[in-house]
């Protein structure tokens, strides 16, 4: 199919804009890559622009040898997978129910959910609750409290509202009840939004460090981001001097950069796998198929 001249011009500029943006978006990561590969002795020199200063893999070796890094890695993977699975499912069931106009009490429930987006009781009551539930110092404390967020529910709901009524009606005529419609018709049709919310949840769980701070004491149950935060925090704080000038051990800048990169890589790899659900016409395709 031939393109009009205007379309070709548009396409050219579109590609150009994307390339420029892509470079801009890569730059912060490139900066960290440069830093992580630099010679640690030379990182005190300012002005890191386009290439590493010196070259060394030492930073990566240091991080990969660190046991707390690996244990954090395991915990984060487990928490992210479990939390995302449970959370996405529950978000979908809740959102589907309130997407039905005919449901009695739908507005009350919606407001009930919205209210939690704006008001929260703070840390202490949450901590006491987790303690009462016997979840302190367990991975459940990292997984369960974060499963539902008002934002995700409302976004998912807006997608469900947009689903074509006819498909569901057709299934009902065939004798399906609401449960069957939800599982057999609605979920398969909603891969794009499930992928979206799933991604949001995965990233939320992966980046969470605060739950560790609140609920975890055992050193082998720290989430990776909590381990990382500590590493960066300490270095940012001290520039080689403790609060009163005494010298403490601080990770080299190169090691910090390498840790950030290694800790971010796994979650970056999730998106390309979900990408096929974002392809144009994906939903219609699945109706037909």
């Amino acid at each position, binding site marked *: 199919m031939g393109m009009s001249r205007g379309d070709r011009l548009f396409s050219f500029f579109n590609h150009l804009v994307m390339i420029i943006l892509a470079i801009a978006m890569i730059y912060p990561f490139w900066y960290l890559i440069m*830093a992580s590969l630099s010679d640690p*002795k*030379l*990182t*005190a*020199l*300012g002005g890191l622009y386009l290439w590493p200063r010196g070259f060394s893999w030492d930073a990566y070796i*240091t991080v990969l*040898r*660190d*046991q*707390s890094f690996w*244990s*954090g890695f395991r915990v984060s993977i487990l928490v992210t997978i479990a939390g995302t699975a449970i959370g996405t499912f529950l978000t979908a069931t809740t959102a589907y129910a309130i997407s039905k106009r005919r449901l009695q009490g739908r507005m009350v429930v919606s407001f009930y959910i919205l209210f939690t987006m704006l008001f929260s009781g*703070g*840390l*202490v009551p949450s*901590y*006491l609750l987790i*303690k009462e539930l016997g979840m*302190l110092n367990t991975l459940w404390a990292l997984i369960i409290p974060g499963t539902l967020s008002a934002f995700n529910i409302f976004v998912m709901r807006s997608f469900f509202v947009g689903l074509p009524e006819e498909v569901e009606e057709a299934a009902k005529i065939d004798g399906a009840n609401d449960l069957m419609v939800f599982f057999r018709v609605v979920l398969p049709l909603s891969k794009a939004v499930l992928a979206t919310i799933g991604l949001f949840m995965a990233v939320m769980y992966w980046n969470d*460090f*605060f739950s*560790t*701070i*609140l609920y975890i*004491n055992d*050193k*082998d149950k*720290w989430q990776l981001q*909590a*381990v990382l*935060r*500590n*590493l960066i*925090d*300490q*270095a*940012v*704080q*001290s*520039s*080689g*001097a*403790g*609060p*009163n*000038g*005494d*010298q*403490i*051990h*601080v*990770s*080299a*800048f190169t*090691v*910090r*950069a390498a840790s950030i990169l290694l800790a971010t890589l796994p979650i970056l790899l999730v998106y390309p796998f979900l990408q096929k659900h974002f392809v144009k016409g994906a939903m219609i395709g699945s109706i037909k198929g």
Partner: protein
Amino acid sequence: MSISKRKIVSLTLLTTILAGCSNVNNAPTGTEGGDGQEGTGPLNVSITLMGGPKTPDSWVETALEENLSAHLQRPVDLENLFLPGWSDFKTKINLMMGDRKSMPDLLWHSDMEKEYNSWIQAGVLVDLVPFLQQHGKNILNYYTEDTLFYSWDDGQLFRIPGDVAELGSMTTMLRKDWLDALNLEEPTTLDEYISVLRAFTNEDPDGNGLHDTFGFVGDHDWRAFAPFFYPNGVDVEQFIVQEDGSVKFGATMPAVKETLKILQELYAEGVIDPRMVTPNSNTGDLFAEGKVGSLYYWISFLNEAHPKQMSFKEINPDGQYVALEPMQGKDGFQADVPTDGKGWSFVSVTDAADEPDAVVQVLDRMASVEVNTLIKFGLEGEHYTFEEGVFKSLINEDQGKQLGLDNYTWFVTRKDEANIRNTPEVIELFERRIETSQPMREKIVFFKSSNRPQWDEFSADLIKLRDETFYGIIAGNLPIDAFDSFVERFYQQGGEQVEEEANLLYQSQRDERESFAAWYQENIVPYK
């Protein structure tokens, strides 16, 4: 990639709401299921460690446990509770302290005066006096009378300092090689100092043909500007005793205006590194980079084994920093920045400890020179060498971290001969700075009490007003006369009440110190 200390302290404080201690009062009486007989069986001590997860079961932990077991003649097992780093440790401590079951035996805390007072009121901290009298020789001999005063609670001690800085821990530093290159004398007065800084900026001291050096840099805090404020006898962050015996907030004193004028000129001329007016630069790195002629910074950075000093030598093989005596003002006044002897972090024993006297024994052992050296530097020959007073590390920073070398720091950190990293010159410098900081120590009021309602009420606004005005003047965004309206607004916006409170406290603190001195003679001196 760095943000100053001030920015970090507790990012989460905003959302933090502290733990209720409601469970504390109905906690069980009597000891809960201690293992074995008291005093002879294995001793389990839970201890909060600052700075996040380290290598599990680190080398240091084992070494320390062995040492303690040998000394106490019973197996000692340390149960480490890692605090999550500077941003969040207060949140965690508050949650832990909310319930007796989650309290550590040995609690490390810092900058939590309000909470500390409520723990005392709730009766969850142990008075250490009797135990220190029995087992605390190392601790009692190390801390001075003045230091213990700040932790004294009317006859009781519910905490001891975990770390007290050297009484003068900062100094003016100057590039000696630059002085020589430009044929300049070491400055002794503020005026000479300023002309040296100008020369460092404009006369290409590193001889690279580029106009790429600065005269002066430092952290984004007022302490860093001490070489300019102190010759005039002012400190803009402290309450200063005036000639008539009253107390005034330093920032409002007339001498400040002159100093700000000088700083404004130097900034405009490019003598002051522009990175200094924002809190985003890492002074340690600028120190190492070697493009700056002078700073007011930590003495410890002059140790040859300090990583930043090593980095500096690597980048500038011929470079040399020297420490200068404080600059003299017009009337000959000179002083270095004095540290309060109070300590910045503290250690308490909680009521959760089954055997508080054994816990104090552990603490006192940790306060010994031998253990201090072991947990901070490792083993001689294996991790470091120490020849003719010169310490040389055999491992790098990250190896040190993995061994756990900083895990148990700030539980009575000794600054004396136990800190073997200090070279003889640095030790001498620390000694000298005690003297040179004395003139200002006599002028500054360090408050003991944390019960300062007026300060709590107004200080955030007043500090903002000060910083906004002073940095604005320095960077040239505001004219120098902005200082006058600052003083006016300062007193309108609560400065009046704050100073009144400061004066009252200053008086009552003097009385308290007298009764402390008597108590100290009776209860501590005989047990030293």
